[in-house]
């Protein structure tokens, strides 16, 4: 988990999201629906975005998981985080961690997506505040590497 091994008890059929939030205190992944519909709970499992609410924790055993809390490397924001910081494609921000994880996963697979590919890849993430257009813009900006360099150190 974010590079650290955590022993967990397997006595019950709990979701990965439940273990993250309630047992490990990692609250960056959010509960939005609990049925795989909203994407608020997305984390990276072996580098790919998954819905933590829909994955039994047993499936994550021994595999690498990265949550929003562990996405920045060495004090440097991930390019998708940086783009979100600059464009603020959010209002309440509750969907944002899930959006960023989905965007990071997309760019790791497809470093130069088209706008259409971004929309398709992100369609499992809901933003009720309606930040979609700017989210697309932010992910494209992250892909193009046109982030403001001076903002990186913030």
């Amino acid at each position, binding site marked *: 988990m974010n590079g650290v091994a955590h022993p967990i008890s397997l006595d019950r059929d709990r979701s990965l999201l439940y273990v993250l939030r*309630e047992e490990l205190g990692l*609250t*960056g992944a959010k509960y939005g*629906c609990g049925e795989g519909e909203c994407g608020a709970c997305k984390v990276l499992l072996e580098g790919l975005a998954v819905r933590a609410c829909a994955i039994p924790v047993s499936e994550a055993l021994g595999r690498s998981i990265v949550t929003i809390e562990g996405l920045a490397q060495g004090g440097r924001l991930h390019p998708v985080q940086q783009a979100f910081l600059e464009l603020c494609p959010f*209002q*309440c921000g509750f969907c944002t961690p899930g959006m960023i994880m989905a965007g990071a996963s997309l760019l790791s697979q497809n470093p130069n997506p088209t706008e259409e590919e971004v929309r398709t890849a992100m369609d499992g993430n809901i933003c*009720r*505040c309606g*930040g979609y257009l700017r989210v697309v813009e932010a992910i494209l900006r992250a892909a193009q590497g046109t982030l403001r360099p001076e903002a990186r150190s913030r």
Partner: protein
Amino acid sequence: MSAPRSGVPFDLAAPNERPYFDRFGDGLVVVLPGRRPGREGWGRGGPPHGGAWIHIGADGKARAFIGKVEVGQGTRTALSLLVSEELRLPLDAVELTMGDTDVCPWDMGTFGSRSMPDAGEHLRTTGAAARAVLLEIAASRLEAAVPDLDYQDGRVWVKGTESSRSLGYGELVRGLRRVEVVPSSTHPVPPTEWTRAGRPTVNLGALETVTGARKYASDLRLPGLLHGRLLFPPSYGATLVSVDLSRVRSMRGVVSVHDGDLVAVAAPDPLTAAAALRAVRAKWRTTDQPAEGEIVSYLRRHPAEGEEFWDVIHHSVGNVAAALSSAPVTLNATYSTAYIAHVPMETHAALASWEGDRLTIWLGSQTPFPARDGLAEALGLTPSNVHVIIPPIGAGFGGKHAETLALGAARLAKASGRPVRIVYTREEEFTQTHFRPMAVVDIRSGAKENGELVAWQFQILNAGSAAARTPYRAPAQKVDNQPAESPLPQGPYRALAAVANNFARESHMDELASRCGIDPVGYRLRHLEDDRLSAVLRAVADRAGWADRGSPPGSMGPGRGRGIAVGMEKGGRVATFAEVEVPANRRLSVVRIVTGFECGAIVHPSGLRSQVEGGTIMALGGALFEAIHFDRGRVLNPRLSQYRVPRFRDTPPIEVVLLDRRDLPSQGGGEAPLMAVAPAIANAIYDATGVRLRALPLVPNGTVPESDREGALRSPSKGPPSQARALRRPRGTSRA
């Protein structure tokens, strides 16, 4: 009763007894007194409020306090900008505390787009008064006259001597314990002279948001935390007959409470709490409720009478009946909107913790002070013994009023002696909060042969009174809102009745324009009485290239259509243009939207743009497909897999045109931008197909029906409007 730890909440203490300096250190405090609600209601001078206060500390920071809360609309940033403007302080030297009932001014709640016109103005005035005192102190220290001073970024100096002798705000107030009341002659910086407000700014707290560090109410924990669940009735209106908690009581570590209608359980982890809830045996008495198919006639048959309905409106000018009967063109039509849900991404959440007899509760709520007072009353405490704190909220949209949940958490925490958190499941969020009201609007209009409107009768059933009045000139008018007994819980919602009322009115204006063969933009401009609204309409028509093509339906080519609508509410003026495509398979796509908006001087441009864009997208859902389905008090689609909200694929390109009127006071931007979306799309669908859809959602299954009839509202049960008399009936115009 032990003494409350932090004394009396500031709003309940006399102004001269508030321990400003004990809490926040020495310095200067400037206070704008509030207006409490009078017996006669709001009266002149606007809604009641608790004022504002600003503390300038020895660290040179400005700590501002306001009773409104941030529900995710960006008001924290906008309000902080206004303080930074008045004091010429960098944004990070302003700390805004919102909605904390121990230290903030009283407030009735964050709704109705009042944050900018109320809190914004209060902070501007208070900031301006603080600036005046700071300059006066500086003048005496620097032995100069105030007009000879200059100031910037928290430092003051005599003009021309900057580097040698400047004083920081911190130095000016060090050792002071001075409280000043805002004098009535205070003048905030006019928006035309703003140098900090009105400029692009990154949202405050953006870094916490993108790193997952931001803690929402549902993320909060305290040592020894228990997880609570509430028992809810199986259907709306059901009452508890009996409850058996014996199985729950035998569960290890589980706490339960039963007090009147409140039955709640708590356990050390959420799974056990869920199991405990399932172990409760309850008997309910259900009441008779209508099925969804009968809802319109049910509402018509169940008017809610009585003065307690705040939303009644009766407005009448001239003699509508006479004007209607002599008008050469008349049109009658009925429009409706479905119940829809708020669906904030974060469900309701509360965390309660007791220290002796004093309750602290972290609550995702838009109404901290009413919540405090309500909790105190329910728990038999004085309001001083309840402290409500509003952490970041995963949006509200008018739906976050969390008193049931707060009370449950408080009772469980008391019973267990441990902190208790309750977070609604998504299903509870759908079934146990409230909906935007189902609404029916009957319109009868009369016009001269040249299209000039002469009679306007607007009968609202159950929508509410927002945007009930028409912005169009009509010599004879009658506007009435009749609340109804709703068979589902209903209440506040972003833009509330403005959406239903405006959908009806703006669809109808299009029908009239079409009936009279007049271009819909020109027809509106001819009747609009408000120049600001006309300006927004013109700006949107320009951007959309409206004048470039002919105006009759079908001019966009086969399967293409365009529509436009305007709206005015809460001081905001909006116009929305929509372009749609309806190919042979009748599947609707919205291909382009232009939304123009004006709400006075713009404080936080990127925040406002987000509000307008986001509001447009939220409105798309209610316009196209969102609807709560129900049967006899039960919600049938209480999950995100069953209740569709707009997603990436539903979002067309949206162009936002903001009109910045620095000469006018700032108004809220969270609500009005929703109100013209549905009629613009309905008008565009008519333009493309000749089919007039009069019920929201317009295309629940995504396809446009072949004729009006399929898309028409179920016919009213009584008092159908008389047959329309028309000079001509172009295709698609139906009689009600």
